[in-house]
């Protein structure tokens, strides 16, 4: 009993430091990365964290695979931008810092409206229906150009109204801090949500709906309420996005957008609360950095995604947690050499594969620009057989060595995990 109390206390101090570090990170990030590009990326990451976390209420907490989450963030964005335009005309008085709440409210209302239909079913059917509703809204966005702005979208100016305390929200840094505050508050609120009775029963609905029915809960209603909560936070994220970019186009409600929320929430790790935060970071990196770097970025994203689903269905977060456990039990050292070997061989293999893929893309899409392309500072000639041979050789050697090491790694990993499990069991019984 005594040990339990101390353990709980320990965990709480850990939690306070963690949240403190999170707040500090949000505060200090623009000071560390001060270029205007990184500031834009940080702002984007801020609202994507909210959206991905809200998506994970459905996917991770509730086991609901939605293909239409962009509907709620997107409609939240549209409502926010209309509210901003009304406010700058003077018909409506809303100070800018409250605009995201308008988005949240819109997300909430639309989640009440559409969620009633979509949450009638669970599992696979739910996935299909959210896709259908998403398509419905996207098709409508082309039918009502008055509201959705047609091809050009709707623009606004966020610097309306009087400045208070000298804050006009003109400079990007002020918008960043607005987003950061919302990001922190929403993260905390969503974490708190997982601890409410509703959040707990939602986990139960995910794991064993039948038993939840037996203890007297209506699973359909639990899913519905969770859907509404997720819609609210998605709307807040959408509102922040509207403030950040000052333009909203119909694309924000598209299925493609919903797909990317799904993809990156999963990549970050849906089984852990903080997984989607990593996912949002990856999403910004992929959108801004990877897409600048290579034309084949969607292919890479797709490949990484498929590998993760097959080999690490817990996402990046689960990889981190598993290795943290090794550190806790002091076993990471045994794997250090294998990790090093794995990374080196993987890099060799991937270099070959990436070079080949880049050359293929170059041939298909940019061959008019000449036979040469630049790849990591090297000039690759797509016409010469030797480049292809080298790339192929690198790939084959790298991946075969990787596979050999991976087998040893898997063995070692299994042994260590077994040891740890035994150790935990011993502790529990003693």
């Amino acid at each position: 009993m005594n040990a339990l109390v101390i353990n709980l206390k320990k965990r709480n101090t850990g939690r306070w430091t963690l949240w403190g570090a999170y707040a500090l990170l949000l505060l200090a990030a623009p000071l560390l990365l001060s270029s205007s590009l990184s500031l834009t990326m940080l702002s984007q990451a801020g609202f994507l964290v909210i959206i991905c976390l809200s998506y994970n209420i459905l996917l991770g907490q509730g086991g609901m695979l939605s293909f239409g989450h962009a509907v709620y963030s997107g409609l939240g964005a549209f409502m926010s931008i209309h509210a901003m335009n009304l406010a700058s005309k003077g018909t409506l008085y809303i100070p800018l810092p409250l605009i995201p709440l308008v988005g949240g409210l819109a997300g909430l209302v639309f989640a009440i409206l559409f969620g009633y239909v979509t949450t009638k079913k669970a599992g696979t059917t739910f996935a299909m229906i959210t896709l259908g509703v998403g398509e419905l809204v996207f098709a409508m966005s082309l039918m009502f150009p008055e509201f959705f702005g047609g091809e050009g979208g709707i623009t606004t100016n966020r610097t309306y109204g009087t400045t208070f305390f000298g804050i006009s929200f003109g400079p990007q840094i002020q918008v960043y801090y607005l987003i950061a505050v919302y990001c922190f508050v929403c993260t905390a609120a969503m974490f708190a949500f997982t601890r409410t009775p509703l959040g707990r029963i939602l986990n139960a609905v995910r794991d064993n709906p039948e038993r939840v029915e037996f203890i007297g809960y209506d699973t359909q209603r639990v899913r519905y309420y969770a859907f509404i909560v997720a819609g609210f936070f998605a709307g807040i994220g959408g509102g922040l996005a509207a403030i950040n970019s000052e333009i909203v186009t119909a694309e924000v409600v598209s299925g493609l957008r919903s797909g990317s929320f799904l993809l990156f929430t999963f990549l970050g790790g849906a089984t852990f609360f903080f997984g989607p935060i990593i996912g949002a970071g990856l999403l910004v990196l992929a959108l801004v950095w990877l897409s600048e770097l290579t034309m084949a970025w969607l292919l890479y994203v797709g490949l990484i995604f498929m590998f993760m689903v097959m080999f690490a269905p817990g996402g990046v977060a689960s990889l981190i947690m598993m290795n943290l456990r090794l550190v806790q039990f002091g076993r990471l050292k045994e794997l250090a050499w294998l990790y090093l070997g794995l990374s080196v061989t993987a890099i060799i293999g991937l270099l070959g594969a990436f070079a080949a893929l880049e050359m293929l893309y170059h041939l298909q899409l940019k061959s008019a620009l000449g036979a040469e392309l630049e790849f990591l500072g090297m000039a690759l000639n797509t016409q010469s057989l030797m480049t292809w041979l080298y790339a192929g050789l690198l790939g084959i050697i790298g991946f075969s060595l990787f596979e050999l090491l991976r087998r040893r790694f898997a063995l070692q990993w299994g042994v260590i995990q077994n040891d740890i499990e035994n150790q935990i069991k011993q502790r529990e019984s003693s």
Partner: protein
Amino acid sequence: MNMEFFTISLLNGLSYGLLLFMLSAGLTLIFSMMGVLNFAHTSFYMVGAYFAYSISQVVGFWWALLIAPMLVFAMGAAFERFCLRRVHKFGHVPELLITFGLSYLLLELVQLVWGRSAVQYPLPSGLQGAFFTIYGTDFPKSRAFIMLLAMLMLLSIWLLITRTRIGLVIQAALTHPETVQSLGHNVPRVFMLVFGGGAALAGLAGVIGGNTFITEPSMAGSIGAIIFVVVVVGGMGSLSGAFLASLLIGLLQTFAIALDHSAMSVLAQMGVAVGPATFGYPLLKLTIAQVAPILPYLLLVMMLIFRPKGLLGTREG
């Protein structure tokens, strides 16, 4: 509504509906046999069209009609064997996710191999021209061919499942995999064949859909959501339901697209003047033709409210 418009729309709607059925049949088969919702199903449709395009340039369309579905079959079977089977133990969500990943991948690969714009994949000379002329409008041979092929397909699937030994094993493997396994049938192989078969059906639809309509990288995305609507409206896992729903949606969309009426024009006929100042003008001025793209989804929503198990679905849940 005159007879001419009605007949032509009916024929077009039926042929479009039957193409939808060719796609949803494979999806329904895979779903009802394996419980896997194949998100990449229309990607196989697209791949089938592109394969047929490349093959028909070498050996002609009729060989492509035979070879392309076989290639897609091999792709589907390999995907099941090496990817899907691996995630099966994690549950349904990862299964769905991996097919979702595959749809991304196939789209990128198609763009890598065949480029980002549409390819010239024309109808073979045997299918060009009018099959018959009615009220002065031609009904193209290609559409008649789609109808013929879909009906043949329906018949052969039905015969295969209800009248053959393989069909029996497949049906039994669905509900009692352990028993079937212990009777000496290779259940994983059955699943692999079913998945490949479903993919091949999509590929076959692609071979004829690609040249009747247009072969481009967005062809999978544009039809993908409609197929899911068909499956939900028809009732999850019900082949006959999928058939009914395909025809229903095919007809619905074809008729709607040709109707130029709106609430405004109806009101105007009744003597009510509607102008830009009237309340709800953007909604009133929409013609049925403009609303056509969202009708299947509206149908989906209506269906879920009033009959959640679908037209011929057997189970709720």
